[in-house]
Protein backbone atom coordinates (compact mmCIF):
# COMPACT_ATOMS: atom_id res chain seq x y z
CA UNK A 1 0.00 0.00 0.00
CA UNK A 2 1.37 3.39 -0.97
CA UNK A 3 -0.98 5.36 1.28
CA UNK A 4 -3.23 4.72 4.22
CA UNK A 5 -3.53 8.36 5.26
CA UNK A 6 -4.32 11.61 3.44
CA UNK A 7 -0.88 12.93 4.42
CA UNK A 8 0.83 9.98 2.69
CA UNK A 9 -1.41 10.48 -0.36
CA UNK A 10 -0.55 14.18 -0.58
CA UNK A 11 3.18 13.64 0.12
CA UNK A 12 3.37 10.95 -2.56
CA UNK A 13 1.68 13.19 -5.12
CA UNK A 14 3.90 16.15 -4.20
CA UNK A 15 7.13 14.13 -4.41
CA UNK A 16 6.23 12.65 -7.77
CA UNK A 17 4.68 15.94 -8.96
CA UNK A 18 1.46 14.20 -10.00
CA UNK A 19 -2.22 14.41 -9.09
CA UNK A 20 -3.74 12.40 -6.22
CA UNK A 21 -5.69 10.40 -8.81
CA UNK A 22 -2.37 9.21 -10.27
CA UNK A 23 -1.30 7.88 -6.85
CA UNK A 24 -4.66 6.10 -6.52
CA UNK A 25 -4.25 4.51 -9.94
CA UNK A 26 -0.67 3.39 -9.14
CA UNK A 27 -1.82 1.81 -5.89
CA UNK A 28 -4.80 0.12 -7.54
CA UNK A 29 -2.53 -1.36 -10.23
CA UNK A 30 -0.36 -2.78 -7.44
CA UNK A 31 -3.15 -4.24 -5.31
CA UNK A 32 -5.38 -5.53 -8.14
CA UNK A 33 -2.70 -6.59 -10.61
CA UNK A 34 -4.69 -4.91 -13.38
CA UNK A 35 -3.17 -2.56 -15.92
CA UNK A 36 -3.96 1.13 -16.25
CA UNK A 37 -6.16 0.70 -19.33
CA UNK A 38 -8.40 -1.80 -17.55
CA UNK A 39 -8.78 0.49 -14.55
CA UNK A 40 -9.69 3.44 -16.77
CA UNK A 41 -12.12 1.28 -18.71
CA UNK A 42 -13.87 0.18 -15.48
CA UNK A 43 -14.07 3.73 -14.18
CA UNK A 44 -15.40 4.97 -17.54
CA UNK A 45 -18.23 2.45 -17.18
CA UNK A 46 -19.08 3.93 -13.78
CA UNK A 47 -18.95 7.46 -15.21
CA UNK A 48 -21.41 6.39 -17.91
CA UNK A 49 -23.86 4.92 -15.37
CA UNK A 50 -23.61 8.14 -13.34
CA UNK A 51 -24.21 10.27 -16.41
CA UNK A 52 -27.29 8.27 -17.41
CA UNK A 53 -28.70 8.55 -13.88
CA UNK A 54 -28.31 12.35 -13.93
CA UNK A 55 -29.96 12.58 -17.35
CA UNK A 56 -32.82 10.35 -16.31
CA UNK A 57 -33.40 12.16 -13.03
CA UNK A 58 -33.58 15.54 -14.77
CA UNK A 59 -35.75 14.36 -17.64
CA UNK A 60 -38.21 11.78 -16.33
CA UNK A 61 -41.10 12.30 -13.99
CA UNK A 62 -39.93 10.02 -11.21
CA UNK A 63 -41.80 8.80 -8.17
CA UNK A 64 -40.35 6.38 -5.64
CA UNK A 65 -42.13 3.12 -4.87
CA UNK A 66 -43.30 4.52 -1.53
CA UNK A 67 -44.63 7.60 -3.33
CA UNK A 68 -42.75 9.84 -0.90
CA UNK A 69 -40.15 11.38 -3.18
CA UNK A 70 -39.45 12.34 -6.79
CA UNK A 71 -39.48 15.43 -8.97
CA UNK A 72 -37.41 17.76 -6.78
CA UNK A 73 -34.34 17.59 -9.03
CA UNK A 74 -36.44 18.89 -11.90
CA UNK A 75 -37.85 21.69 -9.77
CA UNK A 76 -34.35 22.81 -8.87
CA UNK A 77 -33.13 22.54 -12.44
CA UNK A 78 -36.06 24.57 -13.79
CA UNK A 79 -35.50 27.20 -11.10
CA UNK A 80 -31.85 27.39 -12.14
CA UNK A 81 -32.81 28.08 -15.74
CA UNK A 82 -34.77 31.12 -14.61
CA UNK A 83 -31.46 32.69 -13.49
CA UNK A 84 -33.06 33.81 -10.24
CA UNK A 85 -30.98 31.56 -8.00
CA UNK A 86 -29.12 33.16 -5.13
CA UNK A 87 -26.35 30.57 -4.84
CA UNK A 88 -25.43 30.79 -8.50
CA UNK A 89 -25.59 28.51 -11.49
CA UNK A 90 -22.77 26.07 -10.72
CA UNK A 91 -23.88 25.24 -7.18
CA UNK A 92 -27.55 24.86 -8.10
CA UNK A 93 -26.61 22.70 -11.07
CA UNK A 94 -24.46 20.45 -8.86
CA UNK A 95 -27.32 20.21 -6.36
CA UNK A 96 -29.92 19.37 -9.00
CA UNK A 97 -27.69 16.71 -10.55
CA UNK A 98 -26.98 15.22 -7.11
CA UNK A 99 -30.71 15.13 -6.39
CA UNK A 100 -31.47 13.64 -9.79
CA UNK A 101 -29.10 10.76 -9.06
CA UNK A 102 -30.45 10.23 -5.55
CA UNK A 103 -34.03 10.23 -6.90
CA UNK A 104 -33.14 7.68 -9.56
CA UNK A 105 -31.67 5.56 -6.76
CA UNK A 106 -34.86 5.84 -4.70
CA UNK A 107 -36.87 4.81 -7.78
CA UNK A 108 -34.89 1.59 -8.27
CA UNK A 109 -32.81 2.97 -11.11
CA UNK A 110 -29.17 2.21 -11.96
CA UNK A 111 -26.58 4.13 -9.93
CA UNK A 112 -23.02 3.75 -8.68
CA UNK A 113 -22.74 3.59 -4.89
CA UNK A 114 -20.24 6.42 -4.19
CA UNK A 115 -19.41 5.58 -1.49
CA UNK A 116 -22.91 4.26 -0.70
CA UNK A 117 -26.25 4.09 -2.51
CA UNK A 118 -27.77 6.58 -0.07
CA UNK A 119 -25.07 9.14 -0.86
CA UNK A 120 -24.65 8.27 -4.55
CA UNK A 121 -25.62 11.72 -5.88
CA UNK A 122 -22.99 14.01 -4.35
CA UNK A 123 -19.89 13.04 -6.33
CA UNK A 124 -21.56 12.85 -9.78
CA UNK A 125 -23.46 16.10 -9.15
CA UNK A 126 -20.24 17.92 -8.31
CA UNK A 127 -17.98 16.52 -11.01
CA UNK A 128 -20.49 16.95 -13.84
CA UNK A 129 -21.44 20.50 -12.82
CA UNK A 130 -17.85 21.62 -12.12
CA UNK A 131 -16.62 19.67 -15.15
CA UNK A 132 -18.99 21.46 -17.50
CA UNK A 133 -18.13 24.84 -15.93
CA UNK A 134 -14.38 24.14 -16.29
CA UNK A 135 -14.75 22.49 -19.73
CA UNK A 136 -13.10 19.33 -18.41
CA UNK A 137 -12.48 16.34 -20.68
CA UNK A 138 -13.99 12.89 -20.09
CA UNK A 139 -10.60 11.70 -18.92
CA UNK A 140 -10.45 14.58 -16.43
CA UNK A 141 -13.79 13.43 -15.03
CA UNK A 142 -12.59 9.83 -14.70
CA UNK A 143 -9.42 11.08 -13.00
CA UNK A 144 -11.63 13.10 -10.66
CA UNK A 145 -13.42 9.85 -9.73
CA UNK A 146 -10.07 8.22 -8.93
CA UNK A 147 -9.21 11.26 -6.76
CA UNK A 148 -12.57 10.94 -4.99
CA UNK A 149 -11.92 7.23 -4.53
CA UNK A 150 -8.50 7.85 -2.95
CA UNK A 151 -10.07 10.10 -0.32
CA UNK A 152 -12.97 7.71 0.25
CA UNK A 153 -10.59 4.79 0.71
CA UNK A 154 -8.71 6.59 3.49
CA UNK A 155 -11.94 7.63 5.22
CA UNK A 156 -13.43 4.12 4.90
CA UNK A 157 -10.36 2.50 6.46
CA UNK A 158 -9.69 5.08 9.18
CA UNK A 159 -13.27 6.09 10.02
CA UNK A 160 -16.37 4.74 8.26
CA UNK A 161 -18.56 5.09 5.20
CA UNK A 162 -21.58 3.27 6.66
CA UNK A 163 -24.48 5.11 8.28
CA UNK A 164 -25.06 2.15 10.58
CA UNK A 165 -21.52 2.51 11.92
CA UNK A 166 -20.86 6.25 11.80
CA UNK A 167 -24.12 8.09 11.11
CA UNK A 168 -24.79 10.30 8.09
CA UNK A 169 -21.43 12.07 8.50
CA UNK A 170 -19.99 8.76 7.25
CA UNK A 171 -22.23 8.67 4.17
CA UNK A 172 -23.12 12.17 2.92
CA UNK A 173 -20.12 13.53 4.83
CA UNK A 174 -17.68 11.13 3.15
CA UNK A 175 -19.31 11.64 -0.25
CA UNK A 176 -19.00 15.43 0.09
CA UNK A 177 -15.37 15.17 1.16
CA UNK A 178 -14.63 12.93 -1.82
CA UNK A 179 -16.45 15.34 -4.14
CA UNK A 180 -14.57 18.35 -2.76
CA UNK A 181 -11.21 16.73 -3.48
CA UNK A 182 -12.39 15.75 -6.96
CA UNK A 183 -13.51 19.31 -7.71
CA UNK A 184 -10.26 20.85 -6.43
CA UNK A 185 -8.32 18.52 -8.73
CA UNK A 186 -10.62 19.37 -11.67
CA UNK A 187 -10.04 23.07 -11.04
CA UNK A 188 -6.28 22.57 -11.17
CA UNK A 189 -5.71 22.80 -7.41
CA UNK A 190 -2.79 21.15 -5.64
CA UNK A 191 -2.88 17.84 -3.72
CA UNK A 192 -2.52 19.88 -0.51
CA UNK A 193 -5.58 21.93 -1.46
CA UNK A 194 -7.50 18.70 -2.05
CA UNK A 195 -6.67 17.64 1.52
CA UNK A 196 -7.74 21.01 2.92
CA UNK A 197 -11.06 20.80 1.07
CA UNK A 198 -11.64 17.33 2.54
CA UNK A 199 -10.88 18.59 6.05
CA UNK A 200 -13.17 21.61 5.64
CA UNK A 201 -16.07 19.42 4.50
CA UNK A 202 -15.68 16.89 7.30
CA UNK A 203 -15.39 19.60 9.95
CA UNK A 204 -18.76 20.90 8.74
CA UNK A 205 -20.59 17.56 9.00
CA UNK A 206 -19.18 16.06 12.21
CA UNK A 207 -22.01 14.55 14.19
CA UNK A 208 -24.57 14.44 11.39
CA UNK A 209 -26.93 11.58 12.31
CA UNK A 210 -28.52 8.91 10.12
CA UNK A 211 -32.27 9.04 10.80
CA UNK A 212 -34.14 7.90 7.69
CA UNK A 213 -37.93 8.12 7.82
CA UNK A 214 -39.53 4.66 7.70
CA UNK A 215 -36.06 3.20 7.17
CA UNK A 216 -36.10 4.22 3.51
CA UNK A 217 -33.31 5.88 1.53
CA UNK A 218 -35.57 8.86 0.80
CA UNK A 219 -36.23 11.35 3.63
CA UNK A 220 -33.89 13.14 4.40
CA UNK A 221 -31.30 11.36 2.24
CA UNK A 222 -32.21 12.91 -1.11
CA UNK A 223 -32.08 16.52 0.09
CA UNK A 224 -28.85 15.80 1.97
CA UNK A 225 -27.32 14.71 -1.34
CA UNK A 226 -28.10 18.20 -2.64
CA UNK A 227 -26.82 20.11 0.39
CA UNK A 228 -23.77 17.81 0.50
CA UNK A 229 -22.97 18.79 -3.09
CA UNK A 230 -23.20 22.49 -2.25
CA UNK A 231 -20.93 21.98 0.77
CA UNK A 232 -18.37 20.21 -1.43
CA UNK A 233 -18.26 23.06 -3.95
CA UNK A 234 -17.94 25.86 -1.39
CA UNK A 235 -15.30 23.90 0.56
CA UNK A 236 -13.37 23.38 -2.68
CA UNK A 237 -13.55 27.14 -3.27
CA UNK A 238 -12.23 27.85 0.23
CA UNK A 239 -9.30 25.49 -0.31
CA UNK A 240 -8.59 26.90 -3.79
CA UNK A 241 -8.56 30.39 -2.26
CA UNK A 242 -5.65 29.23 -0.12
CA UNK A 243 -7.52 28.66 3.14
CA UNK A 244 -5.99 25.87 5.20
CA UNK A 245 -7.54 23.62 7.78
CA UNK A 246 -5.99 24.33 11.19
CA UNK A 247 -6.57 20.69 12.13
CA UNK A 248 -4.75 18.37 9.69
CA UNK A 249 -7.05 16.30 7.51
CA UNK A 250 -6.12 12.91 9.04
CA UNK A 251 -6.86 14.23 12.52
CA UNK A 252 -10.26 15.43 11.31
CA UNK A 253 -10.91 11.93 9.93
CA UNK A 254 -9.91 10.48 13.31
CA UNK A 255 -12.31 12.90 15.01
CA UNK A 256 -15.02 11.74 12.62
CA UNK A 257 -14.31 8.14 13.64
CA UNK A 258 -14.53 8.98 17.35
CA UNK A 259 -17.67 11.07 16.91
CA UNK A 260 -19.25 8.21 14.92
CA UNK A 261 -18.62 5.83 17.78
CA UNK A 262 -20.25 8.28 20.21
CA UNK A 263 -23.42 8.62 18.15
CA UNK A 264 -26.09 6.54 19.90
CA UNK A 265 -27.44 3.53 18.04
CA UNK A 266 -30.86 5.22 17.78
CA UNK A 267 -29.26 7.70 15.36
CA UNK A 268 -27.33 5.21 13.24
CA UNK A 269 -29.70 4.01 10.51
CA UNK A 270 -32.09 2.30 12.93
CA UNK A 271 -34.89 4.85 12.46
CA UNK A 272 -35.34 4.95 16.23
CA UNK A 273 -34.54 8.64 16.68
CA UNK A 274 -34.12 12.03 15.06
CA UNK A 275 -36.35 12.83 12.10
CA UNK A 276 -37.52 9.21 11.93
CA UNK A 277 -39.45 9.52 15.19
CA UNK A 278 -41.11 12.89 14.53
CA UNK A 279 -44.89 12.98 14.52
CA UNK A 280 -45.06 13.29 10.73
CA UNK A 281 -42.51 10.53 10.19
CA UNK A 282 -44.59 8.17 12.31
CA UNK A 283 -47.65 8.96 10.19
CA UNK A 284 -45.66 8.38 7.00
CA UNK A 285 -44.35 5.10 8.38
CA UNK A 286 -47.87 3.86 9.05
CA UNK A 287 -48.87 4.72 5.51
CA UNK A 288 -45.98 3.17 3.58
CA UNK A 289 -44.96 0.06 5.56
Amino acid at each position, binding site marked *: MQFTTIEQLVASAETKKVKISDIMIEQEMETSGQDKDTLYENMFKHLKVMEQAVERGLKEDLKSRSGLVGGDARLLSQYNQSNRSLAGNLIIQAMSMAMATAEVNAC*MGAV*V*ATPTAGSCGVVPGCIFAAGSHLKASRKDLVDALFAAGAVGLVIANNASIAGAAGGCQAEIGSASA*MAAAAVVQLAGGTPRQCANAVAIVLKSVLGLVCDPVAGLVEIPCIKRNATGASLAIVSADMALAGIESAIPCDEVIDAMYRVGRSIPVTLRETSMGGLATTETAKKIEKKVL
Partner: protein
Amino acid sequence: MSKYSSVFDIVGPSMIGPSSSHTAGAAKIGLMARNIFNAQPQNVQIILYGSFAKTYKGHGTDLALIGGLLGYSADDRRIVNSAQDALRLGININLTTSDEETDHPNTAKIIMNRDNRTFEIVGISPGGGRAEIVEINGFKVKAAADNNFLLVFHHDRYGVIAAVANLLASHGINIGHMEVARKSKGAEALMVIQTDQQVPDDITIELKELAHVTGIVAFNKNSGR
Protein backbone atom coordinates in the same frame (compact mmCIF):
# COMPACT_ATOMS: atom_id res chain seq x y z
CA MET B 1 -5.48 -5.24 7.48
CA SER B 2 -7.52 -2.54 5.83
CA LYS B 3 -11.25 -3.01 5.53
CA TYR B 4 -11.26 -1.75 1.93
CA SER B 5 -8.44 -2.21 -0.54
CA SER B 6 -9.88 -1.22 -3.93
CA VAL B 7 -10.98 2.14 -5.30
CA PHE B 8 -13.93 0.27 -6.81
CA ASP B 9 -15.15 -0.63 -3.30
CA ILE B 10 -15.56 3.13 -2.82
CA VAL B 11 -16.65 4.29 -6.28
CA GLY B 12 -18.91 1.32 -6.82
CA PRO B 13 -20.52 -1.10 -7.03
CA SER B 14 -22.71 -0.21 -9.96
CA MET B 15 -26.15 -1.29 -8.80
CA ILE B 16 -29.90 -0.87 -8.91
CA GLY B 17 -31.08 1.31 -6.02
CA PRO B 18 -32.11 2.21 -3.47
CA SER B 19 -30.11 0.25 -0.90
CA SER B 20 -26.89 -1.74 -1.09
CA SER B 21 -28.01 -4.03 1.75
CA HIS B 22 -31.75 -4.25 1.01
CA THR B 23 -31.63 -4.19 -2.80
CA ALA B 24 -28.18 -5.10 -4.22
CA GLY B 25 -27.49 -7.70 -1.50
CA ALA B 26 -30.97 -9.16 -1.94
CA ALA B 27 -30.46 -9.52 -5.70
CA LYS B 28 -27.23 -11.40 -5.02
CA ILE B 29 -29.00 -13.76 -2.57
CA GLY B 30 -31.60 -14.51 -5.26
CA LEU B 31 -28.94 -15.11 -7.90
CA MET B 32 -26.94 -17.39 -5.58
CA ALA B 33 -30.12 -19.35 -4.78
CA ARG B 34 -30.81 -19.81 -8.49
CA ASN B 35 -27.24 -20.94 -9.11
CA ILE B 36 -27.39 -23.43 -6.23
CA PHE B 37 -30.70 -24.77 -7.56
CA ASN B 38 -28.91 -24.99 -10.91
CA ALA B 39 -32.08 -24.26 -12.89
CA GLN B 40 -34.93 -21.81 -13.24
CA PRO B 41 -37.28 -22.67 -10.36
CA GLN B 42 -40.96 -23.13 -11.23
CA ASN B 43 -42.45 -22.42 -7.80
CA VAL B 44 -40.78 -20.11 -5.32
CA GLN B 45 -41.70 -19.33 -1.77
CA ILE B 46 -39.88 -16.37 -0.23
CA ILE B 47 -40.01 -15.63 3.50
CA LEU B 48 -38.54 -12.35 4.73
CA TYR B 49 -37.29 -11.75 8.28
CA GLY B 50 -36.19 -8.79 10.39
CA SER B 51 -35.47 -5.54 8.57
CA PHE B 52 -36.16 -7.24 5.22
CA ALA B 53 -39.68 -8.08 6.44
CA LYS B 54 -40.27 -4.58 7.74
CA THR B 55 -38.97 -2.43 4.89
CA TYR B 56 -38.98 -4.65 1.79
CA LYS B 57 -41.62 -2.67 -0.09
CA GLY B 58 -39.81 0.65 0.05
CA HIS B 59 -36.46 -0.93 -0.78
CA GLY B 60 -37.70 -3.23 -3.53
CA THR B 61 -36.15 -6.18 -1.68
CA ASP B 62 -38.88 -8.43 -3.14
CA LEU B 63 -38.15 -7.31 -6.71
CA ALA B 64 -34.42 -7.70 -6.18
CA LEU B 65 -34.78 -11.26 -4.84
CA ILE B 66 -37.09 -12.20 -7.72
CA GLY B 67 -34.71 -10.57 -10.20
CA GLY B 68 -31.83 -12.63 -8.83
CA LEU B 69 -33.94 -15.78 -9.09
CA LEU B 70 -34.49 -14.94 -12.78
CA GLY B 71 -30.73 -14.64 -13.26
CA TYR B 72 -30.43 -10.85 -13.12
CA SER B 73 -27.31 -9.42 -11.50
CA ALA B 74 -27.44 -6.57 -8.95
CA ASP B 75 -26.89 -3.90 -11.62
CA ASP B 76 -29.45 -5.27 -14.09
CA ARG B 77 -32.07 -2.64 -14.95
CA ARG B 78 -34.70 -5.37 -15.44
CA ILE B 79 -34.89 -5.85 -11.65
CA VAL B 80 -37.58 -3.19 -11.38
CA ASN B 81 -39.86 -5.28 -13.65
CA SER B 82 -38.87 -8.68 -12.26
CA ALA B 83 -42.29 -9.47 -10.76
CA GLN B 84 -43.99 -9.01 -14.15
CA ASP B 85 -41.18 -10.96 -15.85
CA ALA B 86 -41.71 -13.88 -13.46
CA LEU B 87 -45.44 -13.77 -14.10
CA ARG B 88 -44.87 -13.82 -17.86
CA LEU B 89 -42.53 -16.82 -17.51
CA GLY B 90 -45.23 -18.63 -15.54
CA ILE B 91 -43.17 -18.79 -12.34
CA ASN B 92 -45.29 -18.86 -9.19
CA ILE B 93 -43.93 -16.63 -6.48
CA ASN B 94 -45.38 -16.51 -3.02
CA LEU B 95 -43.86 -13.92 -0.68
CA THR B 96 -44.58 -13.71 3.03
CA THR B 97 -43.00 -12.09 6.05
CA SER B 98 -42.22 -13.61 9.43
CA ASP B 99 -41.58 -12.00 12.80
CA GLU B 100 -39.50 -14.97 13.90
CA GLU B 101 -36.10 -13.94 15.33
CA THR B 102 -33.07 -14.58 13.11
CA ASP B 103 -29.34 -14.20 13.74
CA HIS B 104 -29.08 -11.44 11.13
CA PRO B 105 -31.61 -8.61 10.56
CA ASN B 106 -31.50 -8.92 6.75
CA THR B 107 -32.49 -12.54 6.22
CA ALA B 108 -34.49 -14.26 3.47
CA LYS B 109 -35.51 -17.88 3.14
CA ILE B 110 -36.11 -19.11 -0.40
CA ILE B 111 -37.80 -22.41 -1.14
CA MET B 112 -37.47 -23.38 -4.80
CA ASN B 113 -39.19 -26.20 -6.57
CA ARG B 114 -39.25 -27.66 -10.06
CA ASP B 115 -40.19 -31.18 -11.27
CA ASN B 116 -40.45 -32.58 -7.73
CA ARG B 117 -37.02 -31.24 -6.84
CA THR B 118 -37.00 -28.86 -3.87
CA PHE B 119 -34.22 -26.71 -2.43
CA GLU B 120 -34.45 -24.56 0.67
CA ILE B 121 -31.91 -21.79 1.06
CA VAL B 122 -31.36 -19.10 3.68
CA GLY B 123 -29.41 -16.01 2.71
CA ILE B 124 -28.31 -12.88 4.53
CA SER B 125 -27.23 -9.43 3.36
CA PRO B 126 -24.64 -8.14 5.84
CA GLY B 127 -24.29 -4.72 4.15
CA GLY B 128 -22.41 -2.91 1.41
CA GLY B 129 -24.05 -5.07 -1.27
CA ARG B 130 -22.47 -8.28 0.01
CA ALA B 131 -24.47 -11.50 0.31
CA GLU B 132 -24.01 -14.85 2.00
CA ILE B 133 -25.85 -18.13 1.91
CA VAL B 134 -26.01 -19.48 5.48
CA GLU B 135 -28.20 -22.54 5.05
CA ILE B 136 -28.80 -25.03 2.22
CA ASN B 137 -31.42 -27.75 2.68
CA GLY B 138 -31.00 -27.65 6.45
CA PHE B 139 -27.18 -27.69 6.32
CA LYS B 140 -25.60 -24.72 8.09
CA VAL B 141 -23.03 -23.27 5.69
CA LYS B 142 -21.21 -20.02 5.00
CA ALA B 143 -20.85 -19.16 1.34
CA ALA B 144 -20.27 -15.53 0.35
CA ALA B 145 -21.00 -14.06 -3.07
CA ASP B 146 -17.89 -12.68 -4.78
CA ASN B 147 -15.88 -15.84 -3.98
CA ASN B 148 -15.22 -18.98 -5.98
CA PHE B 149 -16.79 -21.89 -4.22
CA LEU B 150 -17.90 -25.41 -4.72
CA LEU B 151 -20.79 -27.28 -3.10
CA VAL B 152 -20.35 -31.04 -2.96
CA PHE B 153 -23.43 -32.98 -1.91
CA HIS B 154 -22.40 -36.48 -0.84
CA HIS B 155 -23.05 -39.45 1.39
CA ASP B 156 -21.16 -39.30 4.68
CA ARG B 157 -18.50 -41.99 4.05
CA TYR B 158 -14.78 -42.08 4.83
CA GLY B 159 -12.50 -41.00 2.02
CA VAL B 160 -14.97 -38.77 0.13
CA ILE B 161 -13.44 -35.55 1.43
CA ALA B 162 -9.93 -36.80 0.62
CA ALA B 163 -11.01 -37.82 -2.89
CA VAL B 164 -12.48 -34.38 -3.59
CA ALA B 165 -9.42 -32.59 -2.15
CA ASN B 166 -7.06 -34.81 -4.15
CA LEU B 167 -8.90 -34.22 -7.39
CA LEU B 168 -8.80 -30.44 -6.86
CA ALA B 169 -5.11 -30.62 -5.93
CA SER B 170 -4.29 -32.61 -9.08
CA HIS B 171 -5.73 -29.74 -11.13
CA GLY B 172 -3.78 -27.10 -9.23
CA ILE B 173 -6.81 -25.72 -7.42
CA ASN B 174 -6.06 -24.47 -3.92
CA ILE B 175 -8.64 -24.66 -1.12
CA GLY B 176 -8.82 -21.42 0.88
CA HIS B 177 -11.56 -22.47 3.26
CA MET B 178 -13.63 -25.60 3.66
CA GLU B 179 -16.41 -26.88 5.86
CA VAL B 180 -18.37 -30.09 6.04
CA ALA B 181 -21.87 -30.49 7.43
CA ARG B 182 -23.94 -33.65 7.76
CA LYS B 183 -27.46 -34.46 8.90
CA SER B 184 -26.25 -37.42 10.99
CA LYS B 185 -23.52 -40.10 10.88
CA GLY B 186 -23.55 -41.92 7.55
CA ALA B 187 -26.35 -39.74 6.16
CA GLU B 188 -26.47 -36.93 3.59
CA ALA B 189 -23.62 -34.47 3.88
CA LEU B 190 -22.41 -31.27 2.22
CA MET B 191 -18.96 -29.81 1.66
CA VAL B 192 -18.63 -26.08 1.04
CA ILE B 193 -15.22 -25.43 -0.46
CA GLN B 194 -13.86 -21.97 -1.16
CA THR B 195 -11.20 -22.09 -3.85
CA ASP B 196 -8.57 -19.58 -4.93
CA GLN B 197 -9.00 -20.56 -8.58
CA GLN B 198 -12.19 -20.99 -10.57
CA VAL B 199 -13.37 -24.58 -10.94
CA PRO B 200 -13.97 -25.25 -14.64
CA ASP B 201 -16.80 -27.43 -15.96
CA ASP B 202 -14.64 -30.43 -16.86
CA ILE B 203 -13.49 -30.71 -13.24
CA THR B 204 -17.04 -30.49 -11.87
CA ILE B 205 -17.92 -33.39 -14.19
CA GLU B 206 -14.99 -35.41 -12.80
CA LEU B 207 -16.07 -34.54 -9.25
CA LYS B 208 -19.60 -35.76 -9.97
CA GLU B 209 -18.24 -39.15 -10.96
CA LEU B 210 -16.51 -39.72 -7.61
CA ALA B 211 -18.04 -42.45 -5.41
CA HIS B 212 -20.70 -41.24 -2.95
CA VAL B 213 -20.88 -37.78 -4.52
CA THR B 214 -24.51 -36.97 -5.34
CA GLY B 215 -24.34 -33.46 -6.69
CA ILE B 216 -21.99 -30.57 -7.48
CA VAL B 217 -22.61 -26.86 -7.77
CA ALA B 218 -19.70 -24.62 -8.76
CA PHE B 219 -19.75 -20.84 -8.29
CA ASN B 220 -17.27 -18.64 -10.00
CA LYS B 221 -16.94 -15.16 -8.67
CA ASN B 222 -17.13 -13.42 -12.01
CA SER B 223 -20.21 -15.22 -13.26
CA GLY B 224 -23.56 -13.49 -13.14
CA ARG B 225 -22.07 -10.09 -12.50
